[in-house]
């Protein structure tokens, strides 16, 4: 009997992450968030504890991003109570997730994101489904000055080209997950 096969995981940005520009005093730090579980939650009726709207909510160890009416993107294990009144569709491999931080993070992002990221307009728990350089992207805020962006896996290379071109002027370093 042959050894049981093991399929290795390859994250969306695995072979793309590299520093850009002058990194002696980088204005931007990028890290690939290798979230193991991502799922679309589609309500089959009201879901206790999840409200409609472009907001991030944390429930029992998972983050839920409101991405449409009755629709969330869940990061982490979906609570059984939520799964009971929703269709839960695995998307773990469908997205690449980057965390972008540093003093020039916003200046970098505003080279592609057409919505206002000023703290007056983009609250700490806000979520936006928008585009970067003609690619769909989901944007929300992480800890401190960090921003998180989820892009479709297939767009990772094009997205990286945009990010690299946009962050190089500030210098961008890669942090390990």
């Amino acid at each position, binding site marked *: 009997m042959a050894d049981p096969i093991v399929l290795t995981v390859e994250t969306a940005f695995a072979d793309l992450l590299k520093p850009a520009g002058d990194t002696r005093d980088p204005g931007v730090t990028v890290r690939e968030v290798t979230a193991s579980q991502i799922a679309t939650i589609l309500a089959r009726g009201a879901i206790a504890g999840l409200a409609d709207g472009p907001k991030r909510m944390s429930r029992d160890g998972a983050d839920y991003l409101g991405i449409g009416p009755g629709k969330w993107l869940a990061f982490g294990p979906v609570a059984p109570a939520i799964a009971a009144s929703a269709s839960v569709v695995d998307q773990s491999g469908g997205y690449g997730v980057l965390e972008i931080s540093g003093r020039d993070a916003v200046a970098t992002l505003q080279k592609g*994101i057409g919505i206002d990221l000023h703290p007056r307009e983009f609250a700490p728990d806000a979520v936006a489904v928008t585009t970067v350089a003609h690619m769909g992207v989901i944007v929300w805020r992480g800890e401190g000055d960090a921003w998180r962006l989820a892009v479709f896996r297939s767009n990772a290379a094009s997205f990286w080209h945009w990010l690299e071109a946009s962050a190089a002027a500030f210098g961008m370093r890669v942090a390990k997950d």
Partner: protein
Amino acid sequence: MMRRLDHGGAIDRADTRRFTFDGRAYEGAAGDTLASALLANGVKLVGRSFKYHRPRGVFTAGPEEPNALVELRSGARREPNTKATTIELYDGLDAASQNRWPSLEWDIRAAHRYLSPLLSAGFYYKTFMWPAAFWEKLYEPLIRRAAGLGRASGEPDPDTYETAIAFADVLVIGAGPAGLAAALAAARAGARVIICEDDFHLGGRLLSEPHSIDGRDALDWVKDAVRELQAMPDVRLFRRTQIFGAYDGGEFGALERVADHMPVPPAHMPRQRYWRFVVKRAILATGAVERPIAFADNDRPGIMLASAARSYVNRFAVRLADKAVVFASGDDGWASAFDLAASGAATTIVDPRDDVAPELTAKAGKLGIRTIEGRVVGSEGGRHGVRAAIVESTQGRETLAADLIAVSGGFNPAIGIATHLGDKSVWSPAQAAFLAAENNRVATPVGAASGKFGLGDALRGGHAAGAAAAADLGFAKAPGERPTADNETAKLTAFWHVGASAKAFVDFQHDVTVADIELAHREGYRSPEHAKRYTTLGMATDQGKTSGVIGHAILARLSGQADGPMGTPAARSPNSPVALGALAGPHRGKHFRPYRHVAGHRWAVANNAVMVEAGQWLRPQYFPLPGETDWLQSVTREALAVRTSVGVCDVSTLGKIDVQGPDAGAFLDFVYSNTFSTLPAGRTRYGLMLREDGFVFDDGTAARLGPEHFIVSTTTANAARAMQHLEFCHQVLRPDLRVTLASVTEAWSQYAVAGPKSRALLQKLLGDAFDLSNAAFPYLACAETKLGNATIRLFRVSFSGELAYEIATPAQYGAALLDALMKSGATPYGTEALGVLRVEKGHVAGNEISGQTTAGDLGLGKMLSAKKDYIGRTMAKRPALIAADRPTLVGLKPVDATQRLRAGAHFLALGAPATTANDEGYVTSAIYSPHVGSWIGLGLLKGGTSRIGQHVRSYDPVRGGDLVVEIVSPVFIDPAGERVRG
């Protein structure tokens, strides 16, 4: 002699900047423009005019410059039509004049001036009408060569560009006194402010005119204002940034010249940045552009706008002349004359007005300036510039020696941007200027842009507009103290031109004269728009910023309108030329648009795949092996491998939609023409979707993984559209159905494993955990199981007509699964072989599902259920959609097997002439079939299946194809379908 003054000006004499113009070396200073540095070096002649190649000099000190256009830089960075008046001088700058040959001083095409009777208004339309054939071959190349606006480098741009977006409550356009006052007031009140200045120095006209604000030097006030603005976190101050357009929704386009003032941008710095400013309120503080007065030979080098002369004297510390004549019909020209006199020029003021304020004449007298109530009617001079002004007054005609004639006919408020959304401008006789009409939707004009030319009014208006904008948006903090200054005297009598000489130029850039405008008027082109087209007045890079209004005033006078111009064409964006590179940003070459990679992309590239674009996707087209010299060789090998052994094709790009819920089956019954609710779990079915209009929309399989769980697959091309369609059907048409939809195209990698040895390959990979035998997993079965650590889904479906499976896994395992499959010895095949296999099997694809075909046309009429309702059902029954003579799907085989069939060829009955009336359909798909041993195809033929066995002509006039084909069944291989079930 023109030279640099010993003191004064906003230049740094210690910071010298070396540069060359037409190969000659010069020195300037930091703070110079190319124009000011040339003038400081005594260079008067900088260009040749567009049509007559007349010698021209610097005419303005800003972006309105019509004459001093140069080619900046050399090699791949050469940039034509750059305005010397806006180029910030840098060390090593290299510029050349344009539109001259062999040199600027000796320009052979200056002979064009003797052709001027032929080149008058409308010559373009009159001269080259006949013979028509000469246009492309002779006239156009001739004109293009002669009428030059510089040459592009023709090489790829070595620099980078980028785009960015900024948001604010208030945008202030222009950082002169009004703009700075507005920005301060709005920002102090708490608004987020963007203030944007085209120039590299802030202060606007305060840089060029000596003034006091709040009782101290105005430039000190500017410094403090800038310091205060820069200290506020929610203020962004842009220099070297021009707002070029206003768009709907409070959006403005701006171009920031990030590195244009450097020889080469430093690493990672873009040359230019295209900004989109999205703001709630805008304030237009763009100032005003002086307009000249037209007189004979008014275009010689050494004749310039009076305000420009003042800029060169005060801001750039250039002594422009020994003897200056200022021809002005307003008080501002006098102010320029005073500054010229102070710079050491023996100055004469010529003013046609009889009511000049005594204070002005008294001051002129004190400065030793001669004043003449009269007009300049002409100039004398040579190639190197003006030598004298010819003046007429009540005392008669006299010739005044002059190496500078400064002209001032009033000011045009720079309101171009305010008309970008279609709002009107109105002529104000009081200001002798076009002003933005009340309640302009784009911006609130302030200062000179609003026709208030006094400095005190500019500060008052700017402060009030800034405070009002902030208050209007709910910012409650105090806007701070209003800066104050006196209003200078600014009386003006509008005065447009002297006489109607054919050498009295109105539009310098396009060589349009007073006589041209009169000619246009005589020939019926009387509205400003018509006259613009006919004479080219106001066209090209300066867009008539100095000339337009004069031309329109002349038209008005000719039409008997005494009050000034009837109207002026609305300005359109861009206000100033914008390089396409800046709009493209980093999206150049293969990054022109985003592309999509499958998880197995790297494997494909590593295995020598030739990639093909399928929408945004890059898919392997074929995999050439060493020694294969022709794509067909590789494709044939790949197709044969599938027919005889086993091949693997990446089909991850096909759309995948997860459909769940108690009514999932009912929903699919509604969107597919055939029935899915009866499909047992663990089974897959081929389905057809129609559009509302009854034509076929898309096809694919749907697999029922569980009682309430289906996976719908769509074609690659229609993946997004199908998802939208299903969302629409659910949300709008059948919200009653309890079903959820999610696209999972990105989440799963999927591979077709096809060929007689596919089962063996997969079984080996799966081991004992899953039984792939025909009994356990028959044709059209589906299942979800595990492969090692990963979830997989198996579908026994076949596009090739062979025993085949599709295996899917979450995309994070996609690369690893592909690797495992390929290590098992399969042949990779690409989209070409996929096409060969499906044509041999008679399966339709995008070529046949063209949006113009019905299910019946494609031989799929049996898939239209009669037992249920579905999208497109009623419309599919329209008479024309079920007409008997519709072209239907057939197979095609050349009668001469050596001949090549091509898709796109049309069918004609044998012997019928090749006319549209005889057209019987066309070849939709053509491939070389290794199975048949010749080219074969699919096509849509009138009468279709009833004509099997007949011969028709396949006629391809575009590529010279003309052959006889036999009509056969579209299924070339295994018509009984034994292989797929084997």
